[in-house]
Each structure stands twice: as C-alpha cells, then as structure tokens.
C-alpha cells in the first residue's frame, strides 16, 4: 500500500469517528432540549449558550465519579460488557456513506468508514453483536433486576431484528432492479437513489428517486423495528424504572455506565443514518455543480445526509415525548403477530410486483 492510500484510510477512519462522536454529544443535548420544549420546560440552559455544553459537563463529571464494583459480580464479563455494547455501535456507523466521494489528484476519497460489499449484512451482524453487551452486563451483575432487564432486552432485540432484516431484504430486491445486478454495498445503494423518478412519468421529475416511495411499507416497518432495536420509548421496557430500576446497567456506575449511555445514543444516530441511507437516499440531492463554488456544492451532500438523518432522529425524540410505554405482552404481540407477518407479506407483494416488471406476466 502506498502512502497516499494509507493517508486516505487514516483520514476516513478518523473523520468518520470524530463526526460520530460530535454528533452523539449534540444528540444527547438535543434530546433533552427538544423533550423540554415539548413538555413546556426550559431544559439544560446553564452550560454554554442554550446549554449546548451540558453533555460535555456531564461527561467531565463522570470522570470524577467512583465506579463501584459490587462484590457479587462476575468480574471478567462485568468489565468486558461495556466494550461489547459500544464497539458494535461504532462499527455500524462505519458502513454509512455520509458524503459524496471526491477526488484528490487521482485518488478517490469516499466519505464513509469503509465500503464493504456486504455492508447491509455487516450492519445486521453488528446489531446482533450489540445484544451480547446487554446480556453479559445483566448476567454478570449478579443481581435480579439487571438479569430480568437483560432477558427482556434480548427477547425484544431479537424479535424486532427479524422484522428489520425482512424490511431490508425488500429494499435489496428493489435496489437490484435499479442498476446492474444486486448489491448490499451501502455506497451503491445510495448511488442508485440519485436523480428523480422522471423516467417513469414527466410529472414525477421533481420527485427524488428515493426508495421511500416504492418501499413505503418497508420504511414504516424498518422505523418501528429500529426504535425497538435501540430500546427507545415506547419500547423502553428494558429500563422501566417502575419495575426494573435501571434495567441491565443498574449495577454499573461512573464511566462504565457512561459507556452504555453513549452506546445507546450512538445506536440511535447510526440506525437513523441507516434508515436515511436505505430509504431517503442518503447524501443524494441536487448539488448545483457549476453554478455554486466547488467547496459548497461538495459539502451539500453531507448536509443533505445530516438533515435526513436528523429528521429520523427527531422522530425518536418525538415518540418519547408522545407515547406511553407498551406492556410486555403488547410488545411481543406487535413484534411477532403484526410486524413480522407484515414484513413477510410486504416482501412477497413487492417481489411479485418486481417479478412482473422484470420477467413479464407468466401468461404472456
């Protein structure tokens, strides 16, 4: 590997990482501020302008907090669990292209952690891995409520993961018809959503070519599934204070607890980014190349990506302010009796429709 290539990889890794962390810190603040607005409170207002440094202040505070390890814990697993929770959360975001690739000399710089050809499968794998962090944290704590919380979290995550995967398959089948052959690469999926639906009918020439329109049902299923997958309200039974105290991380304190907290917010952002990439076209959008200065038209895709992702992140916060928590049996009923059959049925309908377009009707 030559030095410029190495530099590009280092650049991609570091910039993606920094972007993820900065955005997560802002998200924690944004959630508190938005919730406060929705509940007619002021919210954080002291640290920095509009309290924007509140998260930083909280983080600094946690550095100085004692991290008590109870006597009954399984020490090895107890120490390993925060890593297992947060590393997959980081790795998920890696697959998301957050800007249009550009050229430096004759090297292409993709604004994305890495473009694996199995990108979507990698995301599914990593979101499964994140369950281990939760299970081991609850199990190793040697305490009843964390154990219950962990079992609940696992059952919930695996239930909604099935629906999430099936919604993804519908998108993959559809994407395969939009270009040369099928693909699981996130960069390629975005590439195929650039432009408009103008080729179908001139009326649609102002409608962007997002998967959202043909795959709207899959989008709704995916959205519900990612809210459940990240254990957010109204699916936050994992940390239902009234019955389970703090859930699986009750026995964690100080910086070790902060790792679980960080993982939750990293997951919210990455999952929203994936939803934006699969259904809302990721960075795709008009860049006005030629009529705007190069720097502005070059950074517009990144801005589009952030706007789309934040639209979905906002839905997360909105849901939390609006909906009461589900009961556990309602959660399981929704997952297995509504969402999975709906996802399977949609997959069949959408695939048969695509089959008619690609292969023609069987009787013709």
């Amino acid at each position, binding site marked *: 590997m030559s030095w410029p290539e190495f530099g590009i*990889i280092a650049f991609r890794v570091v910039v993606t990482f920094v972007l993820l962390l900065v955005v997560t810190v802002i998200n924690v603040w944004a959630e508190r501020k938005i919730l406060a607005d929705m509940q007619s409170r002021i919210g954080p207002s002291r640290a920095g302008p509009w309290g924007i440094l509140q998260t930083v202040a909280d983080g600094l505070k946690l550095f100085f907090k004692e991290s008590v390890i109870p006597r009954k814990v399984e020490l090895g697993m107890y120490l390993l669990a925060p890593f297992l929770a*947060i590393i997959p959360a980081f790795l998920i975001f890696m697959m998301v292209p957050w800007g249009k690739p550009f050229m430096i000399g004759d090297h292409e710089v993709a604004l994305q952690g890495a473009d694996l050809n199995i990108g979507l499968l990698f995301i599914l794998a990593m979101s499964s891995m994140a369950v281990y962090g939760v299970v081991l944290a609850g199990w190793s704590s040697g305490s*009843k409520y964390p154990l219950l919380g962990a079992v609940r979290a696992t059952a919930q995550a695996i239930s909604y993961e099935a629906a999430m995967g099936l919604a993804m398959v519908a998108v993959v089948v559809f994407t395969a018809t939009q270009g040369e052959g099928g693909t699981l690469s996130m960069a390629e999926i975005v590439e195929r959503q650039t432009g408009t639906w103008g080729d179908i009918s001139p009326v649609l020439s102002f409608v962007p070519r997002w998967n959202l329109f043909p795959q709207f049902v899959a989008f709704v299923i995916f959205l519900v599934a990612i809210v459940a997958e990240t254990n957010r309200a109204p699916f936050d039974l994992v940390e239902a204070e009234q019955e389970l105290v703090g859930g699986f991380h009750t026995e964690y304190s100080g910086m070790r607890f902060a790792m679980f907290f960080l993982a939750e917010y990293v997951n919210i952002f990455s999952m929203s980014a994936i939803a934006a990439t699969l259904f809302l076209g990721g960075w795709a959008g008009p860049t006005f190349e030629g009529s705007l200065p190069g720097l502005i038209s070059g950074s517009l895709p990144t801005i589009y990506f952030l706007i789309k992702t934040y639209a979905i992140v906002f839905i997360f916060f909105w849901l939390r302010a609006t909906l009461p928590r589900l009961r556990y049996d309602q959660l*399981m009923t929704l997952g297995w009796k509504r969402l999975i059959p709906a996802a399977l049925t949609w997959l069949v309908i959408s695939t048969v429709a695509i089959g008619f377009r690609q292969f023609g009707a069987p009787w013709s």
Partner: protein
Amino acid sequence: MSPYFESYLTVGAFAALGVVLVLGILGVASILRPDNPTKAKKLTYECGVDAVGSGWSQSYIRYYVFGLLFVIFDVEAVFIFPWAIILEDLGVFGLVEMLVFIGILLLGLVYAIRKGVLQWE
C-alpha cells in the same frame, strides 16, 4: 493491496480505534476518580433496599420459545439475502421457489400463533 482487503483493514482499524478510545476514557477515569470501596458500597444495589436471596432469579420459559423462533427467522435471513441479490439471474424459477419458502415460513408462524406459544400470559 486489493480494495477488498483494504476495506476490511479499515474496519479493523476502526474497531481498534474504538477499543483504544474506550480503554483511554476508562483509563483516564480510573486515574482521576476516587476509589475507596467500603463493605456497604460493595453490596449489590439491586433497588436500594438490601438484596434478599441470591443474585439469580427465574425467568419465564416463554423467552426460550422466542429465542428458538428467532433462530428460524435468522437462518432464513441467511438464505434470503443471497437470493435477493441474484434474483434477476435466477429468473421466475428463483422467484417462485422463494415464495414457496416464505409461504412455509408464514405457515409455521401461523401455526405457532394458533398453538398459542406466542401468547404472553
């Protein structure tokens, strides 16, 4: 180096950076924070009241059934993703084949629902 290995190398670098970052944060915290465990502090917190009995509790057998069902749907994903990618090459035969597969899967789910194993009571 081929782009294939290069992208996996990037994934490795990213994971390593993540581990280093978490280790760094926890390391710095362990230097800065006070550390004076007492006997009372090292008790299991649970819910604030002194814990009764062992740290273990029984959980509902239903969770196990859901675990089994999940394995079925996860294995299904293993079959269905490759199929989704090469659907165009497989043609009508591949399409019908997978419809039969999904049909059997749906039938199984309906059977599980009718049997009441997904009932949470």
